[in-house]
């Protein structure tokens, strides 16, 4: 679809703007807390601080904007959250100067931090309390890179909105809150007071958001007065009218719906820097009624359509304007990205079980293709009831090679949720967020607590509980591996180590959950999530209808190949002894290249539809699942597993020495549930069969990446086969798949490092082949073609 000049400029502005750290929020919050009364309950205090931010933070309406509001003072300006994690001056310097994901820190910000923010928050931030409360064993494991901790500088979030805001204004929410307040039973309910405080807090935040809208209306009116361009003046007046109506009232049309959501988005992400991915979820189904109404009521339906497109373009740019909050320390290393994982869901099933594809679904796909922005990310939710043409339309975007949209099995996502006790309509109104995580939108706190380094566990088992990187005895003495008589002995040690560290992780999580419940209630987020208002409870304290906690397993491919290598070579073929294996690992294979090749090439490996390897994958899955699934969290919910890495496989790799699968020390682990880079030699169908050996329904999400070259998808036939490949995987109960349609640059890397790209398939002439098996001349030729073919 055509992109207007306005959108082109706004998009370019978003791309060009430099990520900048702003002290505005920190300063406002410091001022508030410095004067705050002590005789106020924590939720109300938090709500008042939120109201202060909504009343005083700077308002930004950029030239030509149709959707208004920024988290910072301008696009790409990021606030900080010193109550959670107070950056030191050194942190600010690092953020300003580091090569990757840097944030500009200007003199004012640095000064404000030095003069007021740091002096006030030092010794008061939640992060400091958290590390104070943590046990030595937790800290040792954390520092060794056995697991990470999501909440050490970002609040638990991981929730996505359902459709309620599109028919509920903030005034309606206030009415609901008042009803709950009226119903409080101080005679019989011992929690009546805490409920009252929580509800009062919610009420304050709802009013605060209305005020935030009004302030935008005022700014728009103000700009309209001085605007010379009559067309823009009308637009600004319209914006003022919209911001007066929403968020106070439910939206009446398409434009108001988008603007309302955006105010809510800013509210949630200003209240706390919630991990991850707060987003509108099923945007197509939420917008569909407004879109149809717009078509029906506008005089020229084509005009409405192009307005709707332009509004969506502007909406997309808004997401791209928000870099993830600047992180420090390990957390920056474990996911070094500006992306904050908003994932718009398209398609799937409606709550009544019918096909959720509408005109807006296709419209959103057009927008994704037009915008080519990293944020918001997007996914298609594919149910067997959704038509192939929908998947194929998405495949056409995928082949342009920017990795969007990712593809989910909507039927499986529903099944996953129903398995853990969610109602069928709630499950169908749910979907996926962040990378691949399943949740009941608008009704669930599904909190990711941290990544878990599974190959590192084996490393400990191979060293009797000692971390060879630091020489520290981290785990229990699970036995000297040189004395293991059988593979089972090793596996028992592996299980023992895993149990130890899962327990340590969960103990830590339980404490952290309570810290947030006690000190950091989120009344604004709470009023948006069922059934917090009904229960009078906070999002962090069991208010949501569903409460899940996840520990995300990383390195399934690596651990499978490691176990397979030990089983095959040490215990079955006996061509290597355990002491030999350990010597090689210690030497990082220096002087053992031939044996490393044996491990790499003569071992049954995951991703080849080979049961010898895949059985081990299933076994590790069951062990991990068995140790986590169903354990209670502190919010009345349960633990579940999911298997995804974001970019943590790089960080975990960097703390894990050489591994028995031939992987060299400090190099990345396998990502998601994808095979080790280059281990899969039998094409995508074999990978999908292997991956489907796990029981995805018992997870809250798995992540599978596949690399394709553009040639494989260049024609209709190639696209159709991609659709069929996806459908087949989903018939086998796969949860998610995404395709990297690789560019020439990657092919160049593959040339330099063929061992890591052995799974890369290219279309050659009338057939397809592994890129690395081709002659140099042909590789060059394909690279030339790829460059030629870029869209």
């Amino acid at each position, binding site marked *: 679809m055509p992109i207007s000049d306005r959108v082109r400029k706004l998009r370019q502005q978003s791309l060009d703007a430099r990520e900048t750290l702003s002290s505005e929020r920190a300063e406002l919050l410091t001022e508030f807390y410095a004067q705050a009364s002590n005789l106020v309950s924590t939720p109300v205090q938090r709500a008042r601080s939120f109201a202060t931010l909504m009343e005083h933070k700077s308002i930004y309406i950029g030239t030509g904007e149709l959707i208004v509001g920024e988290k910072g003072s301008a696009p790409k300006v990021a606030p900080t959250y010193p109550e959670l994690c107070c950056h030191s001056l050194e942190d600010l310097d690092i953020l300003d100067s580091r090569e990757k994901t840097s944030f500009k820190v200007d003199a004012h910000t640095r000064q404000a931090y030095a003069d007021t923010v740091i002096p006030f928050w030092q010794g008061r931030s939640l992060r400091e309390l958290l590390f104070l409360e943590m046990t030595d064993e937790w800290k040792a494991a954390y520092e060794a890179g056995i697991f990470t901790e999501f909440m050490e500088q970002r609040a638990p979030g991981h929730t996505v909105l359902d459709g309620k805001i599109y028919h509920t204004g903030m005034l309606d929410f206030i009415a609901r809150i008042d009803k709950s307040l009226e119903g409080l039973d101080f005679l019989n309910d011992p929690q009546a007071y805490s409920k009252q405080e929580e509800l009062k807090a919610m009420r304050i935040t709802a009013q605060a958001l209305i005020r935030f809208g009004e302030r935008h209306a005022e700014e728009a009116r103000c700009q309209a007065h001085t605007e010379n361009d009559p067309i823009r003046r009308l637009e600004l007046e319209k914006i003022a009218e919209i911001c007066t109506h929403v968020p106070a009232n439910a939206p009446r049309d398409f434009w108001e719906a988008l603007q309302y959501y955006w105010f809510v988005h800013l509210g949630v992400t200003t209240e706390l820097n919630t991990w991850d991915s707060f987003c509108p979820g099923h945007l197509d189904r939420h917008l569909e009624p407004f879109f149809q109404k717009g078509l029906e009521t506008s005089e020229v339906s084509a005009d409405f359509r192009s307005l709707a497109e332009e509004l969506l373009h502007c909406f997309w740019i808004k997401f791209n304007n928000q870099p993830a909050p600047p992180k420090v320390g390990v957390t920056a290393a474990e996911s070094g990205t500006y992306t904050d994982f908003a994932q718009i869901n398209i398609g799937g099933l409606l709550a009544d079980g019918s096909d959720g594809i509408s005109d807006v679904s296709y419209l959103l796909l057009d927008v994704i293709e037009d915008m080519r922005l990293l944020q918001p990310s997007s996914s298609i939710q594919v149910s067997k009831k959704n038509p192939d043409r929908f998947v194929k339309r998405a495949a056409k975007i995928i082949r342009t090679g920017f990795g969007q949209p990712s593809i989910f099995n909507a039927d499986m996502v529903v099944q996953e949720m129903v398995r853990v006790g969610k109602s069928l309509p709630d499950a169908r109104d749910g979907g996926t967020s962040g990378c691949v995580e399943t949740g009941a939108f608008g009704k669930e706190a599904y909190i990711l607590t941290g990544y878990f380094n599974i190959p590192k566990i084996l490393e400990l088992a191979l060293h009797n509980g000692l971390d060879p990187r630091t020489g520290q005895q981290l785990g229990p003495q699970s036995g000297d591996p040189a004395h293991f008589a059988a593979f089972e002995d090793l596996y028992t040690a592996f299980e023992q180590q895993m149990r130890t560290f899962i327990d340590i992780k969960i103990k830590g999580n339980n404490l952290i959950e309570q810290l947030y419940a006690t000190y950091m209630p989120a009344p604004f987020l709470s009023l948006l999530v069922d059934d917090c208002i009904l229960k009078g409870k906070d999002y962090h304290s069991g208010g949501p209808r569903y409460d899940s906690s996840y520990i995300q397993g990383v390195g399934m491919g690596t651990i499978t190949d490691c176990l397979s290598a030990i089983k095959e070579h040490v215990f079955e073929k006996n061509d290597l002894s355990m002491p030999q294996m350990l010597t090689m690992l210690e030497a990082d294979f220096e002087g053992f*290249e031939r044996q490393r090749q044996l491990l790499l*090439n003569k071992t049954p490996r995951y991703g080849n539809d080979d049961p010898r390897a895949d059985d081990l994958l299933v076994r590790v899955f069951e062990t991990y699942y068995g140790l986590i699934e169903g354990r209670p969290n502190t919010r009345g919910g349960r633990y579940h597993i999911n298997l995804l890495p974001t970019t943590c496989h790089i960080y975990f790799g960097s703390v894990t020495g050489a591994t028995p699968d031939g992987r060299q020390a400090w190099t990345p682990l396998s990502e998601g549930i994808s095979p080790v880079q280059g281990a899969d030699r039998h094409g995508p*169908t074999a990978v999908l069969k292997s991956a489907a050996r796990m029981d995805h329904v018992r997870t809250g999400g798995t992540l599978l990446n596949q690399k394709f070259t553009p040639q494989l998808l260049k024609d209709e036939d190639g696209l159709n086969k991609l659709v069929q490949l996806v459908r087949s995987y989903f018939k086998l109960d796969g949860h998610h798949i995404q395709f990297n349609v690789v560019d020439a640059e990657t092919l160049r890397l593959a040339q330099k490092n063929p061992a890591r790209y052995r799974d890369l398939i290219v279309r050659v*002439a009338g057939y397809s082949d592994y890129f690395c098996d081709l002659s140099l*001349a042909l590789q060059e030729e394909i690279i030339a073609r790829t460059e030629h073919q870029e869209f």
Partner: protein
Amino acid sequence: MLNGIVFDIKKYSINDGPGIRTTIFLKGCPLRCWWCHNPESQASQPQVIFRPNRCDLCGACLEACEHSALSWGLNGPLTDRAVCESCGACAQVCYAEARQLVGRQMSLPEVMAEIKQDIPFYDESGGGVTLSGGEPLFQKEFSLEILKACHKQDIHTVLDTCGYASWQIIEQAVPFVDLFLYDLKVIDAGKHKQYTGLSNECILVNLQGLSRLGVNVLVRIPVIPGVNDDDQEMQQIGEFLSALPNPPPLELLAYHNIAAAKYAGLDTEYALPDLKPPAFEHIQTLAARLRGFDLSVKA
């Protein structure tokens, strides 16, 4: 138990028939086409192929060879093909997989087990199995057994053939083949002999026979510059195909200079080292010309 010699099994094969397929490459071929892109398929017995870019120069192959066929060259081990017995001992110890034995004995159940692994993908895509080579009918009993076994399991079958076989064999295969991918190079018998080593008489007769039976045939023409891409050749191909009882659809496949490294790895000479692939536009012109014979042409 009947065994065959298979030199490769490719899954997610998406260019050799409908849907997502598994292609079984069988070793051995009667023809010796100058442009053959699978030179390792020609001989019927296993051969060792060498890929120098994988070799880490460990020397294990030299120690393992009991026939003294290997010696150190400037850039790695050299194979004396006159002495090499293709026993595969060198490949066995080559952990880096620089030396590999192309072609392995497989039983029918082994091949069927591999085929059956991808049934979910055939079901979804309308795919199945393609027998290719080499010339699959060169291992006629084995090929026939695979085709029969597939049909018994309701798996769609494609036979990718050069057509050089006795009619009797082809006729036996017909009931178990859902689609023939039939290679046609040139019509002129002398030219055919020059470039492939054998006359094409039976190839043309067999194609006529299949056409008469009305079975599904897709004729595939590799367009080799200087060999069959001139007006005269296209004229003859067009006339021949349009005169068949049931003129088949056809597909033009552009020659590709992809196999040079494989020839080197087998220590055999490549007859067309400098031939450039035909231009896309040229293929389109040829396709248009053939469409003039009222043929359905994909290019």
